[in-house]
């Protein structure tokens, strides 16, 4: 890869991060967070993208980002209030920005009209900033708690700039140290930057230059005093020196200290005075918030925390985000995977060693056994820590969902609020990557079909705005992700009717509510009577189910008519290890993934029936399930043996087909490290992968799907109770 491409790649990686940062900041603002730090974070994100885009000459991108940035700058300097309408536009702008970044990376082009529409909207915000605020005063009285109420010094100075630029003088004293030059900074450039802010008069103090004999060629002896007449805030002046702060002596003072004091005084007085002056920029605050207005620390409006269960979380997250910036490094994924493999080997080796020691019959109190116990503990800690490297919070995926909700909601003309919970829950990177598609599909479904139209909601006595809750939690070694809507719930009568009309269930089938709900996961089922371009793409919930099962997860739905439905997915935390049932078949040890197993059975003579030549079925609670002798399928033995001497495991494949697998004996349940067979050998039918057991032997992991798929013959009808006469 040429160096330029490598840098470009880094830029795009950073863009991804900035976009996440941007969106999370905007969402916070939408929730009424008016912290200046949040606005600054959003501004920084956009600014960084602009910088990089400019360097690489992505003109289209730069052009858009510039407008975006300018708008944000207005908000940052409190010249534009972040009303819900404004944040909505900004959020859409961030979506467009994401599209543009993707277009730049993939060399394509974004939807030009969409870009133009948003750019125009942003421009409208820019041009009409003062006027827009007046409008807001009249229309958004009820949403006043969203208004920024922070009065910072710069906002006072900036106030009313549009009509009468309030300029002031700064005295900037700047004395660079040698370190500044060593880091390739350039005084001239900084001075030029200052010059751009307003009128400057620069004096250079050369008094400290020593005699030539004593002069260190790499030393710094010059000191500048700049008098700057500008309309920008002190903070903006200081920002120019942001990157050299540590390598210089810098002082920025207003030339007229008296004037500053006066204005400070004013800001502390009853609100009317500054509000009058700032009529254009500062919207009227409620009396209750006056105390907030003068407090330096911004606070969320009181109304937000009540109906936002996530608000507390958001606060906490903010504290994390702005307080301690955690140091991170970029590491090649291959290296991490290699480390994980090595630790996997370590775990196996440690298990082998333990087994050898216990075989050697050493006393439990012997130092070897005690040392080994400690080693075991350590090994487990190392494994957990290494797995944690691959683990990532689900936040980025969740955030992408908020865009999906916005898009689908605007397409369907519904108003939907997405509440996220537990975004910090961590799960393996691969799981996260493969979670996006099914989750998007479910979210689309929930907004499109789950949540009713506004008028129906009002008629049902529900708030006009639909609520969609996306949550993630850790539960007993797995991650549980839930998508809950407060819509109409599943229309069971219709689901039933569709299932019957499509021949998925017999007409006389007697199903429980739960069974009816889960019919929507059957292949070939789609409830949308009119196929919309949102969720009707010829794929149904069965695709979602298959995707989740491919990850070793399970999905279920629960629904209350009129109150909404909840999809619940349970996924493994990592794909490197698997919970398996260790069984013996024909003298060989096999592992069957635990997620596929429904229950274990002891076949009785009377419950096993011959069906045709050689095929057998087993009756369990009036259902006939094909019986498969694993030993025979894997050619471990030629003759099928008596099922009653064996154990049957009732399994369900990803496609929902059920089967009973005959094995000789069950050894127990164990977590195993997954090893590929393909690396050195190739694919083996009926085998998903291999693993290494405590005794150092290789055990094969059964591919339940492949085993079940063989005799599958339209079992969906056969397995339902009603079909078993």
């Amino acid at each position: 890869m040429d160096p330029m491409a490598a840098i470009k790649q880094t830029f795009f990686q950073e863009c991804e991060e900035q976009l996440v940062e941007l969106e999370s900041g905007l969402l916070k603002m939408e929730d009424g967070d008016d912290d200046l730090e949040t606005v600054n974070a959003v501004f920084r994100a956009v600014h960084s993208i602009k910088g990089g885009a400019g360097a690489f000459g992505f003109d289209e991108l730069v052009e858009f980002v510039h407008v975006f940035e300018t708008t944000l700058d207005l908000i940052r300097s409190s010249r534009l209030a972040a009303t819900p309408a404004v944040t909505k536009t900004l959020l859409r702008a961030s979506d467009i920005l994401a599209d543009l970044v993707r277009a730049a990376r993939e060399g394509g082009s974004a939807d030009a009209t969409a870009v133009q529409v948003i750019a125009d909207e942003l421009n409208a915000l820019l041009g009409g900033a003062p006027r827009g605020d007046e409008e807001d005063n009249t229309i958004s009285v009820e949403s006043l708690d969203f208004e920024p109420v922070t009065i910072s010094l710069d906002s006072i100075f900036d106030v009313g700039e549009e009509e009468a630029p309030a300029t002031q003088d700064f005295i900037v004293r700047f004395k660079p140290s040698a370190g500044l030059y060593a880091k390739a900074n350039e005084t001239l450039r900084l001075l030029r930057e200052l010059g751009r802010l307003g009128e400057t008069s620069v004096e250079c103090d050369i008094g400290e230059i020593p005699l030539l004999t004593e002069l260190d060629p790499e030393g710094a002896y010059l000191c500048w005093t700049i008098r700057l007449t500008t309309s920008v805030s002190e903070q903006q002046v200081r920002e120019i020196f942001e990157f050299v702060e540590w390598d210089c002596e810098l002082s920025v003072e207003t030339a007229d200290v008296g004037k500053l004091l006066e204005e400070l005084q004013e800001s502390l007085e009853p609100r009317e005075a500054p509000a009058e002056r700032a009529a254009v920029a500062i919207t009227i605050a409620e009396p209750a918030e006056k105390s907030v207005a003068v407090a330096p620390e911004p606070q969320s409006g009181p109304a937000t925390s009540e109906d936002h269960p996530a608000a507390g979380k958001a606060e906490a997250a903010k504290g994390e985000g702005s307080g301690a910036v955690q140091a991170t490094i970029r590491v090649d994924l291959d290296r991490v995977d290699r480390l994980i493999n090595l630790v996997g080997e370590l775990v196996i080796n440690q298990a082998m060693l333990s087994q050898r020691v216990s075989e050697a019959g050493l006393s439990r109190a012997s130092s070897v056994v005690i040392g080994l116990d400690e080693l075991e503990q350590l090994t487990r800690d190392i494994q957990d820590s290494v797995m944690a490297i691959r683990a990532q919070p689900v936040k980025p995926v969740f955030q992408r969902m908020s865009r999906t909700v916005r898009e689908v909601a605007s397409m369907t003309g519904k108003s939907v609020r997405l509440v996220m919970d537990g975004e910090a829950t961590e799960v393996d990177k691969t799981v996260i990557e493969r979670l996006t598609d099914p989750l998007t599909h479910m979210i689309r479904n929930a907004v499109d079909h789950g949540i009713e139209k506004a008028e129906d909601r009002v008629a049902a006595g529900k708030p006009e705005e639909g609520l969609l809750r996306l949550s993630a939690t850790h539960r007993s070694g797995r991650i549980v992700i839930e998508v809950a809507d407060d819509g109409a719930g599943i229309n069971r009568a219709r689901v039933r009717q569709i299932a019957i009309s499509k021949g998925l269930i017999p007409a006389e089938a007697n199903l429980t509510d739960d069974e009816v709900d889960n019919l929507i996961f059957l292949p070939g089922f789609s409830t949308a009577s009119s196929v919309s371009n949102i969720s009707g793409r010829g794929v149904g919930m069965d695709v979602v189910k298959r995707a989740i099962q491919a990850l070793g997860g399970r999905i279920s739905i629960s629904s209350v008519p009129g109150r909404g439905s909840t999809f619940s997915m349970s996924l493994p935390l990592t794909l490197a290890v698997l919970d398996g049932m260790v069984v013996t078949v024909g003298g060989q040890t096999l592992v069957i993934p635990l997620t596929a197993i429904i229950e274990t059975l002891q076949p009785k003579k009377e419950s096993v029936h011959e069906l045709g030549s050689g095929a057998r079925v087993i009756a369990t609670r009036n259902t006939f399930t094909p019986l498969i002798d694993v030993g025979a399928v894997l050619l471990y033995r030629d003759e099928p043996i008596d099922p009653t001497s064996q154990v049957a495991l009732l399994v369900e494949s990803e496609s929902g087909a059920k089967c009973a697998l005959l094995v000789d004996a069950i050894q127990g349940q164990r977590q195993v490290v997954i090893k590929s067979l393909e690396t050195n050998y190739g694919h083996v039918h009926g085998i998903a992968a291999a693993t290494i057991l405590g005794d150092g032997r290789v055990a094969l992991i059964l591919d339940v799907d492949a085993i079940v798929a063989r005799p599958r013959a339209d079992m969906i009808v056969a397995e339902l109770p009603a079909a078993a006469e």
Partner: protein
Amino acid sequence: MAETISRVATNEAKEFIAFHIGAQTFCIDIMAVREIRGWTPATPLPHAPSFVRGVINLRGAVLPVIDLATRLGLTQSEPTARHAVIVVQSAGQVAGLLVDAVSNILTLTPDAIQPTPEVASEIARTFVKGVVAAGDEMISVLTIQNLLPEPTLDAA
């Protein structure tokens, strides 16, 4: 293959590992050998060709073991702990070759390797690259590439 031929053309000596299977002696290029270890019971693979003994654990990697006796059409003996597994690498694929015993290391110049005598056995023509006279013994030089199972063919 092309690489092997070009190396044979140059006149430098190369090292080979010699081993026994039954009464016959074979050798392979030492550069392809990663290690030699004792036989440990392998886990049989379903639907595998008869010459694939199964898979073993090589420090965490799953390694197929090829029974060279069966592969070369010789009489197969039940492996014991005294049998050796030569771990070889070829084109990114790692596999173990089950042999009766490893005898020694030979240094051979390309001149010393004679072309395989014309015999009827197809197995000899497929796997034996040439023969070497060592005293009154004949050692067959094997090509590793052809010994390993084709991954694609094994997908049942």
